[in-house]
């Protein structure tokens, strides 16, 4: 019996001792970093802020949608089933499981969650420059919410922490007005702390925040507030129009004198991930609009013949407008005019217009690695010309209109476009309003604003084939989100 006792106690000892600890897990065993290890150094915060910028790059398709959904361009592509998500938007057969819209939804919310994670942990460390750093965070959160509210209207709204698995299905859609209110708060807070310049190009500045807030006010039809806000950007004289319109869109023109806010892309860290092709450092929006199977010694590289400008857009430009050839490339005309380039290309197989998006056409030597995924072209998100045109509109539509100021701003833009003052406008009131809207189309064509401008100004139904008032002002909430989170769908979808 003694032996039994010994063995039994030995066994019990083995069973009891340290057994629960044996199956505990600490991520440090695998050298993995968790939130417990973070927020101890300023660099932890700075690094997370860089991560908060990252989803801006993933939103490459938002400007593409802004033109395809409008009268500016068609989807094109290889056939009717190529880029189905964009074809639906083009044809106004949009269904709620649209992959492009789902991607935008997810990307914006990822940006918001990244910003919220910084918000959640703001109090853990104090360091010099922290407030200014958080100015960037607030700007970015406002930017992501603004994209959401433009695309979808009412959207779930949360700001205090990064959501976890247990927050799934907790939130419903907040009214658009609440979302706009949060955007205004964030931008106001950002303006208060952001510097006017940064040593690193592409970092958010006070002017960028003011310009964005001016734009947000315009979308809310708060013209007085918009005019006042945009005036901050103009009156400081920090920006000037690039004399030669075409230079803006060259690599050398990135972050130039007219650049208020640009989403930065790069070919410096080649990306290869076809599983998530739009989430790298390159601008996939450039690859999609390229000319198919292009050969010869032109500066252009080939692409997928998507987002093709319409003849309608081409005809909107008047004679002498230098912006036309910068905005649109008529490939056949270009080929004929430059026989020495030995150009051959494949005619766009589907919805061919013969025209290409010259502002963002892929160019040789501007990509790396997996060539389709790494074009370096920044998106010129807010240009000074846009600020001038927005300010013109705000002043023209303000409670006490200032058409003189409005005309001076719009004519600055036109003088650059025509190279002279002969094409200056003179109208006032509603005539001027129309003229400003028309000018916005020409100046900002293929930069992603057209659809949202048409909706904002109530012109969409008259300008866009297939657009239904009361339905197409916003896109459908992704079906997956409706299925999982039980959100209400937008009317008509």
């Amino acid at each position, binding site marked *: 019996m003694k032996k*039994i006792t010994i063995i039994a106690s030995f066994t019990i000892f083995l069973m009891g001792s340290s057994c629960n600890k044996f199956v505990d897990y600490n991520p440090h065993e695998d050298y993995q970093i968790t939130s417990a290890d973070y927020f101890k150094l300023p660099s932890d915060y700075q690094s*997370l802020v860089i991560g908060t910028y990252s989803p801006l790059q993933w939103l490459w398709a938002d400007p593409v949608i802004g033109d395809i959904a409008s009268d500016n361009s068609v989807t094109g592509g290889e056939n009717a089933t190529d880029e189905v998500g964009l074809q639906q938007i083009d044809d106004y057969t949009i269904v709620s499981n649209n992959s492009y819209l789902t991607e935008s939804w997810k990307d914006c919310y990822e940006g918001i969650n990244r910003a919220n994670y910084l918000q959640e942990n703001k109090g853990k460390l104090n360091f010099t420059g922290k407030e200014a750093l958080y100015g960037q965070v607030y700007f970015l959160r406002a930017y992501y919410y603004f994209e959401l509210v433009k695309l979808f209207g009412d959207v779930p709204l949360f700001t205090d922490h990064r959501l976890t698995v247990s927050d799934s299905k907790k939130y419903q859609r907040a009214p658009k007005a609440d979302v706009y209110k949060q955007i205004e708060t964030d931008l106001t807070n950002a303006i208060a702390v952001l510097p006017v310049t940064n040593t690193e*190009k592409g970092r958010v500045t006070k002017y960028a925040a003011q310009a964005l807030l001016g734009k947000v006010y315009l979308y809310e039809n708060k013209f007085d507030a918009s005019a006042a806000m945009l005036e901050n950007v103009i009156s400081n004289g920090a920006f000037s129009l690039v004399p030669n319109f075409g230079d803006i869109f060259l690599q050398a023109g990135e972050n130039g004198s007219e650049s208020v806010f640009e989403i*930065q892309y790069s070919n410096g860290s080649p990306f290869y991930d076809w599983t998530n092709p739009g*989430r790298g450092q390159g601008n996939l929006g450039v690859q999609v609009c390229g000319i198919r199977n292009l050969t010869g010694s032109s500066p252009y590289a080939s692409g997928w013949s998507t987002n093709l400008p319409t003849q309608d857009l081409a005809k909107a430009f008047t004679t002498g407008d230098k912006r036309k050839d910068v905005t649109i490339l008529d490939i056949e005309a270009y080929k004929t005019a430059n026989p020495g380039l030995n150009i051959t290309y494949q005619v766009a197989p589907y919805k061919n217009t013969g025209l290409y998006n010259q502002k963002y056409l892929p160019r040789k030597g501007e990509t790396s690695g997996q060539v389709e995924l790494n074009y370096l072209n920044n998106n010129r998100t807010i240009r000074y010309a846009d600020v001038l045109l927005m300010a013109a509109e705000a002043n023209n539509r303000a409670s006490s209109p200032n058409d003189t100021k409005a005309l001076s701003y719009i004519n600055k833009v036109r003088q650059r476009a025509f190279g002279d003052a002969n094409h200056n406008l003179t109208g006032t009131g509603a005539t001027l309003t129309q003229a400003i809207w028309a000018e916005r189309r020409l100046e900002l064509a293929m930069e992603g604003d057209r659809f949202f401008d048409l909706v904002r100004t109530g012109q969409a139904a008259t300008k866009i084939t297939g657009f239904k008032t009361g339905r197409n002002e916003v896109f459908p909430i992704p079906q997956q989100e409706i299925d999982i989170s039980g959100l209400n769908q937008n009317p008509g979808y």
Partner: protein
Amino acid sequence: MGLNENVKQSQVFNHVNDCIMNLKVKLMFLGILICSFFLQLNAQSVKLSGRVKNKLTGEALSGVTVLNTKSHKSTLTDEKGGFSIQAEKGNVLILTYVGLATLKYTVIDVAQIAEIAMEEENKKMEEVIVIGYGTQKVTKVSGAISTIKSADIEKLKPVRAEDALQGRASGVNVISSGSPGTKATVLIRGIPSYSGADPVVVVDGVTQTLDDLNSINSADIETISVLKDAATTAIYGVKGGNGVIVITTKSGRKNNKPEFNFSSSYGIQQLARQIGVLNATEYAAIVNEGSLISGGNVIYPDLSKLGVGTNWQDQIFKNAAMKSHSITARGGGEKMTYFLAAAYTGQDGIVGGGDKSYFNRYNTTTNLSFDLTDKLKLVSNTSFTNIKGGTVAENSINSVISNALNFDPTVPVYNNIPGTYGKYSVSNNILSEIYNPLTQLDDTHNQTNTNKLYGKIELQYQVVKNLKFTSRYGYTYTDVAGKSFTPLSYYGDSHINSTLNSDGSTRSGSHNSVYQNHNNYYNYTFENFINYNVKINHDHAFETVLGTSMAKVTGSSISGSRQDVPFNSWDFADISSATGIATNSGISLGEYKYERRNISFFGRINYDYKEKYLVSFTGRRDGSYAFGTKNKFGFFPSASLGWVVSSEKFYKLKVIDFLKIRGSMGTTGNENVTPQFQQITTGIYMYNVGQNSGYTFGNNPTSVGSTISTYANDALSWEKQKQLNVGFDTRFLNNKFNISFDYYERKISGLLFVPSLSLYLGTASVPSSNVGTTKTSGIDASIGFTDNINKNLKINTNLNFTTAKNLVTYTNQGIIEDGYYGIPSQSITRFQEGYAPGYFYGYKTAGLFQTQDEINKSPTQSNAKPGDIKYVDVNGDGLIDAKDRTQIGNPFPKFTMGWSLSLTYKAFDFSSFVYISVGNDIYRAYERNLAMTNKFRGVLGRWTGPGSTNDANNPRYTFVDANNNTRASDRYIEDGSFAKLKDVQLGYTVPTKLYKNKIFSKIRVYAQVKNAITLTKYSGYDPEISGGIFNTGIDRGAYPLARIYSMGLDCKF
């Protein structure tokens, strides 16, 4: 032909010489070993003489160990069965002989010659099988277990142990792989989960994995038990969910003279059949047609001089050698036993031959046991394995086979263009993806070297009678070093994969590179348990076990690659000699490590009343390191009942000798997840996840950022599986027939699955959660017949039958897609609610459009022209689009059968084994279908005009496939059902009287053909295509199983 024969013969001859050399060396070595063990036995007092014979055959038995239990002396019978031993009246002699029942003989009269007859073991009645943490008499088992014995395994000599289960163990589905040494798909009772279906492997009580079966020498294996139902697997708790393969290796026998076994075989492997591709003239004609239809020019103006061209399959497939030699010794003395083995197995690959793909394994095994005291026993099993392997690219678009099938048949084998680089020719037509397979083989350089040490050290302490304490430490240490070299290659001037120019100079921006990795794995299981067996009132028998187990699995790897190997040569391929530098991305490093830990407590009570009523309870409490903080431990209980009807008094049926009815229920688990936590990742990209965190500020280099990359899930738990099993075992007609039948149902709840979380949570990786449910049901059955028809003729045949019906019953609508293949780029298999796991997903076809009118009247199918495939509008919305994709096949068989037959007639023995798989579909994915790649013979029956054909397999041929006829559809699905004569063997045992040499006690020679005949409708090489849940049955040019002709020798001495 004659030359080939000569070569083969001389190979065989050389090989036989090698064998003899090997044998001599090994005999010497072993001789020395034996001498050290057995220098004993002296004579004294009275000598008893006797003769031993086989009761059934009357043959004299030589080599029987005769032990006097009183004096502890022993001797062996001579070749006439005679022996003499010191003994006195009343002494008990114990006689032992392999295969015969151990016999006790009490000495009555020392003066008389003792005539002793030994009987064959009554295997069916006394057989004991290995279960978790113990053994059980087979008649007392109330769970579901299939067992394979060493005799079968030794005959088959599988390179990997799991191959022995194919068709031989009911309830087990094995889909073999043709590539030397590669793991098979093994499913025990279907597919319960998508996260992995590999059963747990337990070798001598030590947990290993299916991957580890590459290192076990088949000659070491005594038995393989497959535990299938909850009653038998619940003792393995959270690891038992996919079934358990319990392997027991051989051990020595006490008081037995050494018995040696030497076996050697040599075989030639060859491709069983080719795939029909176009010859050069046919190819040129079809390419001309495709070009003309698409508005292009005639590409081959003159077909007459092309002839048949090159069939690249002839070039890449080689006859390859298969060799195996093993020598074992087993025996034991009074206090110790031993089993020693040394083995070599070498299999060359038929793709490219043994230079490029091969699997060479060396094993040694030392299984020892010592009685340290009367009560304390030490068991030490130690095996060491060295494996050297090389592989060629396989089962992908870029595989050697894919290149051979799709490459240009009009070019000659060798480069005949003066002044250009390269040994083999290039195609000027095919400019991407596909290239000369011989160049590819030439440029294939890789090797891995694996050293593995595994075994156990076990102490058994007999505390009191019937109560035994066991403490066991089992371990597996594996060290793998690999190297591969990607040289600069020339596939043609305009070929996009070329990294050399035609003059042999390097293309700008191109580099060769060498990759090296070093992986280390260490697993241990430390277990302590008590077995207590007791009988109360003679009729109530209890067998109990209670114990604990701690297990840890660790793995780590470090790898690196470097560009610019000198002279573009394998001879210099090493990181140390390459010259690439880090700033030019010329060097890269990789690392990973992982760990798993489990702690468990388990117990089992087996009770029987007069071996008539059987009851068993098992429970295991398991803690796993992988699970969330709220769910570290789980409990897995099971119970089973059995009733031996034939033991009842009222039982009068004379025909049925034995009948047992069984039933069991219980729970097991699955822990195929890794620990989850909220992780912060710093970097630019996270590949395949998309959770990138880099950004660019102006012209500065890309900025590295951080973000949360994964969510935590503290509630994460195991998959819980409930299994029900009912069955019976019976023997009838004088035990000549036996039948075993089981019906089972497995239901998984808490299936580990990717949950559907609100999209507004963002893009961080969603952790697995316990989401879904699945159900599997089926039948395992076997029927056997054994009879000695007369003195000369014995027959033994067995038929196995296995079905498994799998269904995913709930997954929150989530879908796991996999089975990605590049033609076209999309996933082909799915794990989805309402369907069988891993089913094929794509369009259904409905013949071909014959006329434009037919197209106009059909659901809208953009770009279709007459002669294109008509797809089925599955959802009926009048439009053919992605929503019309549906189930088009299932790669897993509806049922499988195995039929083995062995006949012994006098000195001859014959055995055959047939394996049948019914209902397994195959997706034919090796057809590349680029404009200029070679085509398959089906294209000759293509649509050429209205009414020519309506077969969706043969649409019109054009370069511009606007209808996308090559989209994933049932056009590429084939019925892969097959019947294979897997093994056929004829042996001859040389009668002992024919050789004077007294050394040997048995010599058997045999000839064997493996994969001799395959009956199937499948048009590819081989309908057996392994690949786990998601890649089984997708033929991307899979490595076919070779037909193997071999000859061998087994001897005992």
